[in-house]
């Protein structure tokens, strides 16, 4: 039987961000991770450090995301210093491309509603093809336009993932791989987590297991409305870097490859496979967006599952006394704020009242009943 002050359930970027934050606050932490084949959004992430479009359905999310990217450079610097891993943060602005006029109109409406959340302090612009090509000359002539925002950027998600694990280890954190939680029991001093092989006692627990939070929530009698939305990504051979701006549809990685996205598939369940039709459509779009890519080789494709709530925004809630739920789709964008701020809430044992909008209550009662 292991024992810790705080048990963090999950082994991805969200879980490790919180766990590292708690270790830095001097807490005795154990991280319970699943095995090597776990469904792991952190290994399939596109790597955007992003604000664009966030918060159209939950106003508090927009300023939260803006604050998160603002303190990201401190995280990158600390990780470089502490772990020797350069997570390659670049915050030079980001673009969302729209192939058709209809897409562009939808995008304009979404951006306007996001900007309204922060009363005009959110800068962005809508671009037509000409303005777009002035910014990124490689964009194809068929592309209708796009949206631009200066807050956006990128980091290498795998390096971030690795750096967080290394930082956690160097901070003396206790890491248990192959230890998925099968049941949760309440005890006089907090919780007892059963992995099937061992039991871990902790005063507080953090549910940060991505899609796994649905099952963990049920163990506590709480419905956590997260569902998988699959995205497929293509990765190219190494190519010279041609643009500094990051696009939701393409970005250069620090290793020289390019990532090309993406898809939004709600019916795939927990299947992380890729499909011919979708990869082909992505390749076709990518050719239209960036004609220079036509002859570039695709080395690999992968499917990953986004962790999506009904309003596509994070949930932070104390779902039972001392049991904190931390779940979101944007583990990379929000990494710094999870480490600095959310870990602090868990440390103090309470989520501030002004953050109540992030709670489960916003989904109403029907989410407590339906799985």
């Amino acid at each position, binding site marked *: 039987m292991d024992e810790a002050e705080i048990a963090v359930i999950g082994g991805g970027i969200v879980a490790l961000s919180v766990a590292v934050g708690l270790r830095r606050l001097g807490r005795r932490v154990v991280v319970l*991770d699943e*095995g*090597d*084949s776990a469904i*792991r959004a*952190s*290994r399939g992430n596109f790597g955007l450090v992003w604000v664009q479009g966030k918060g159209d359905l939950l106003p508090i999310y927009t300023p939260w995301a803006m604050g998160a990217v603002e303190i990201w450079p401190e995280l990158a610097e600390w990780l470089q210093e502490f772990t020797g891993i350069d997570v390659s943060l670049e915050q030079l602005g980001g673009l969302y491309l729209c192939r058709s006029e209809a897409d562009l109109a939808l995008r304009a409406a979404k951006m306007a509603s996001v900007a309204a959340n922060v009363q005009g302090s959110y800068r962005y612009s809508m671009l037509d093809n000409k303005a777009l090509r002035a910014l990124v000359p490689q964009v194809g002539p068929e592309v209708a336009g796009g949206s631009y925002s200066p807050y956006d950027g990128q980091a290498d998600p*795998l390096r971030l*993932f*690795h750096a967080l*694990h*290394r930082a956690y*280890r160097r901070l003396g954190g206790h*890491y248990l*791989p*192959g230890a998925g939680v099968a049941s949760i029991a309440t005890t006089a001093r907090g919780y007892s987590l059963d992995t099937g092989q061992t039991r871990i006692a902790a005063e507080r627990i953090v549910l940060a297991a991505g899609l796994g939070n649905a099952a963990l929530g049920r163990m506590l009698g709480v419905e956590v409305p997260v569902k998988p939305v699959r995205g497929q990504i*293509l990765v*190219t*051979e190494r190519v010279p870097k041609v643009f500094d701006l990051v696009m939701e549809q393409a970005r250069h990685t620090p*290793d020289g490859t390019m990532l*090309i996205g993406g898809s939004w598939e709600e019916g795939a369940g927990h299947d992380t496979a*890729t*499909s*011919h039709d979708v*990869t*082909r459509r992505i*390749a*076709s779009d*990518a*050719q239209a967006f960036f004609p220079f*890519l*036509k*002859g*570039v*080789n*695709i*080395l*690999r*494709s*992968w499917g990953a599952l986004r962790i999506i709530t009904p309003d596509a925004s994070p949930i932070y809630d104390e779902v039972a006394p001392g049991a904190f739920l931390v779940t979101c789709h944007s583990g990379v964008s929000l990494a710094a704020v999870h480490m600095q701020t959310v870990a602090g809430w868990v440390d103090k044992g309470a989520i501030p009242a002004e953050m109540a909008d992030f709670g489960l209550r916003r989904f109403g009662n029907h989410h407590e009943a339906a799985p």
Partner: protein
Amino acid sequence: MTGMVDVAIIGAGPAGMAAAQALHVHGLRVSVLDERAGPGGNVHAAALDHPPEGAALLGRDYVRGAQAARAFAQSGVPVAYGASVSRIEGETIHYLQHGRLRQITAGRLMLATGAIERPVPFPGWHLPGVMGAGAFQLMLKQSRVVPAGGYVLCGTGPLVLLVACQLLALGSRPLALLETNAVASPVRVGAAHLSTLARNAGAVAKGLSYMARLRLAGVPVISGVTGVEAKGGETLQSVHYRRRDGATASLDAGMLLFHEGVIPGTQLGLALDCRHRWDSDQQCLVPVTDEWGESSRAGTFIVGDAAGILGADAAPHSAMLAAQRIAQQLGHRPDARAVAAARRALEQASGFRRFLDAAYRPGVAFGTPIADEAMICRCEQVTAATLRAAVRDGARGPAQAKAFSRCGMGLCQGRICGNAATRLIAADSGLDAAAVGGHHVRFPLKPLSLAELADEAPQTEQADG
């Protein structure tokens, strides 16, 4: 090649050719895909391209292989050569041929993708001038060119001896043969397998004659080698080795041909999520199949060396079993006699393989921990030290280790490094290799351009294959 068949066979080596002909005889619609320009697989590559005297230089087995390839070419089985499988999804096989993505649909799939040389990372193994002896032999067969001399051979097993003899026959006497067999006395092992040896007298005689020919030609044979290192600037300059008693020495060399046996080529099966097990004796992944070769993915059969190493002579027999089973599943009467004969032949081959595995133990791969400076993942230039750091950072399997280190993330998707990565992670984490498992293999299996993917040929254009 038509768009819809009963069985698609991937690989036109000994197994694929035999299966295709057996199914063809039953009147089933078969299509074979192979990456090469002709039949024969690795073992009989380019078999149809040699004049008889050229083939003879490569040995009697190769001449026999040429005959099998010729019979296959004349059988009328439709084949797409130069065809690389890109993706398999359900019953549809997407493949790249002549710069165009095409597809066929098959009710059943047979993987006859053969073996790969056991990847054994040692310092300098990635230098130009260092090759697998099997890869080198393939080059001999395909190009009929022997690069300038200075050959050192290193490894264990019959193939390394055969290649040394082929070099002799082609007029290039190897500088030395560094024997890495961890078994000090194969003869003693032979004594325990006497009845097997008697049943395989031809193969045994072949092995002994290779060694005799090398000794006769004065090729120094240095036994008991446990570690090897290739050194050089841009290309190989010298080979350094260590013997069991700790003694070290070096040789100047232009080429180092290394070989410690072969393991099943599992990329396609892994990409299809077929169940695999870790063979702790041979330290490699092997697909799990039933007695007919059907994998855990219903309708997908794995035959020949891809299903477990039994050698080229045995490959047609496992292929025959799968072909008869498929014929039966599709309502044809299986040939009971052919099934019985194939089972007998496989049993004999298994016995001989048990002897070979016992008599030739890879001394470097199994006996020596991978050196820190050895490049494990050649595509992404990941050293053993970097992979070890990933394990220290918590990686307990190839997926997490890949995310942490990029090992297996390159062009070959772990085809080369996967086996070594699993062994290293197991050794460093203290886990069983079976628990560590293999890489996830993703589509496309071979690189293809965005335009090739976006512009797949429509079905109607594909009648000619």
